[in-house]
Each structure stands twice: as C-alpha cells, then as structure tokens.
C-alpha cells in the first residue's frame, strides 16, 4: 500500500512521516509537493508537521489554498484515510475538514516534550490497532495547540465520540497538569463525523523506533495499513 505525504513550503516533519511508513513499516511512501494536483493513487494521506507558509496569517490558513488540498478534500469526502499531524491538524481545521480552531498555548510556551496521550476511540483508520488502556508516550512540539471549539460544537464532538486522543498523566487520567497547552477537555486529537479524517497535535512519526526514546507512535501507522487492507477486502467481496 501507499502513503502520500504532502509537502508544504515550511513542512519539516514530512521526511519523518515518510521514514516511519517506508523504513520502519516497509510500505511505499511518496512525498507530494503542495502544488501538485494528484495524490498519485495513494491509499493514505498524511499532512505533516512543520510551519506551512511560515504560519503567516494563522497556522494552516494559507496552506488550505494549496492546489493539492482540493484533491485531499476529494479523497477525504470519498472516505479515504487522512491524518493531520500537528501543523497538518491545523491545516485540516482551517480547511474545514475538521471542526474547531487552534489558539496560542495557554501559557504561551512552545512545548517540546514527551506527553502521555490516551486513545479513546479505535474505530478510526489510525487507531484501530491501538489499546485504549495504556496511554501512548509521544512527543508534542507546538506553540499553538490550544484546541478551541464553540460549546455546542464541543458537546457534539463528545457526544459523537469524535475526541480520539486526550492528554493524560502516566496513569491515564486527563488532569489539568497533563494538558500542555490548555486545550478544551484535554483534547489532543479528533476525527471527522465520517471518522476517516483524523488530526492530532502530538507527533507519532517522531516516536516510531526505540532508538529515539519511544516506539509508541508506530501503532498509528500500523493501524492505517490494517485499515487499508481491511477496506480492500471489504470492497473486493
């Protein structure tokens, strides 16, 4: 199967995502420039971390107009699995593929550290191989990860089980101290109503081998591989 990793001017985790898919998991992974107009038959699309267009105006605000985003939207609307990591999550919010917006971290610090993230939902293409009991240790690296949505939107997200990842402490409790940025309800990541579009602030691609301190992020990529093969099986029946 094939991953497409979109490269915006200012993306800087594109190669990490490609490495995780290609070298750690042994899948195909192609970097696709934001001005391209084709995803070249990819089964999974990743919008990587970084600072697309220098974060000018607002994070992700300019990237949403990149030509490739039309294709990403079409792919998502057709049920294709799309993962936005950090800046990629911010792009998905600005593009309207996920609800809500990002504010500056509540304490204004750029947080670059390992956090614990609890996977609450396993019926998304990026979490179906995850455990909901043991929190993942994966790093965050952002200045604007303070997730915000209007009260009725937030209530709908919770009701529809669209909160996929939550910041927790080592024992799995979503405490205020475990929340690095002040995001509402300790939200670290959400999915679309169709559940195929997932965005999260932590960086699973930076935690795919024990040599870098944690391999907890790999399960998201493994989930995507499993989801695509199950989808292929379902359509071939």
């Amino acid at each position, binding site marked *: 199967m094939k991953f497409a990793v979109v490269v915006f001017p200012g993306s800087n985790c594109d190669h990490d995502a490609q490495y995780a898919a290609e070298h750690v998991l042994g899948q195909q992974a192609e970097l696709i420039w934001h001005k391209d107009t084709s995803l070249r038959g990819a089964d999974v699309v990743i919008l990587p971390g970084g600072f697309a267009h220098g974060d000018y*105006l*607002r994070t992700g*605000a300019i990237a949403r107009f990149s030509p490739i985003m039309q294709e990403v939207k079409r792919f998502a609307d057709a049920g294709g699995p799309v993962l936005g990591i950090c800046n990629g999550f911010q792009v998905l*919010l*600005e593009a309207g593929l996920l*609800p*809500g*917006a990002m*504010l*500056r*971290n*509540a*304490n*204004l610090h750029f947080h670059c550290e390992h956090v614990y993230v609890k996977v609450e939902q396993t019926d998304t293409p990026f979490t179906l191989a995850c455990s909901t009991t043991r929190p993942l240790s994966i790093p965050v690296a952002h200045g604007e990860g*303070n997730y*915000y*949505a*209007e009260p009725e939107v937030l209530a709908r997200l919770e009701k529809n089980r669209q909160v996929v990842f939550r910041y927790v402490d080592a024992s799995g409790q979503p405490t205020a101290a475990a929340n690095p940025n*002040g995001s509402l309800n300790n939200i670290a990541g959400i999915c679309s109503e169709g559940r195929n579009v997932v965005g999260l602030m932590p960086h699973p691609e930076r935690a795919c081998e024990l040599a870098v301190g944690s391999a907890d992020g790999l399960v998201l990529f493994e989930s995507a591989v499993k989801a695509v093969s199950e989808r292929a099986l379902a359509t071939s029946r």
Partner: protein
Amino acid sequence: MRARVFVTLKPSVFDPQGTTVAEALHTLGYASVKDVRQGKYFELEIDAANSEEAKRIAREAADKLLANPVIESYRIEVDAAQAEMAR
C-alpha cells in the same frame, strides 16, 4: 480606496497574548489598564467604484481569509476622505 480590517478574538475566546501584555503593563506600573485584547490589522488598497463596493470586497476577504470565524470577529472601516476624492 483603502479599507481597514480589524480582526480580534471573540469576547468568549481566551487571549493568552493579550493577558500577557496586560501583565507586562502592570509590571510597568499601569495598574489602570484592566484588560488587553490583541488582534490583527489589515490595510487593503482596493480598486472600487465607491466605498460600499470597497466595503463589500473587504467583508468577503475577511470572511474567506483574514478572520477565522470560529475564534475571531472583525470590523471594517473604509477611508471616507479617500472615497470622496476617488469620486
């Protein structure tokens, strides 16, 4: 014609930058400054027949790009003196 667009966070949205600036002002001794809200300011030079058209274009620009309606609101001013001269 010049349109000025002021983008600010909605009153219900927490503004960590504004709060920090307010704290800095308090440190400088300005206890009378009760609150600071930080925003963005845009000047748009618009080729428009009249100020109504300029305002309409600026509003579209704000709705589509300059402001994020989830967290921000905006206010538009069109330079009246310039608008008169342009006529």
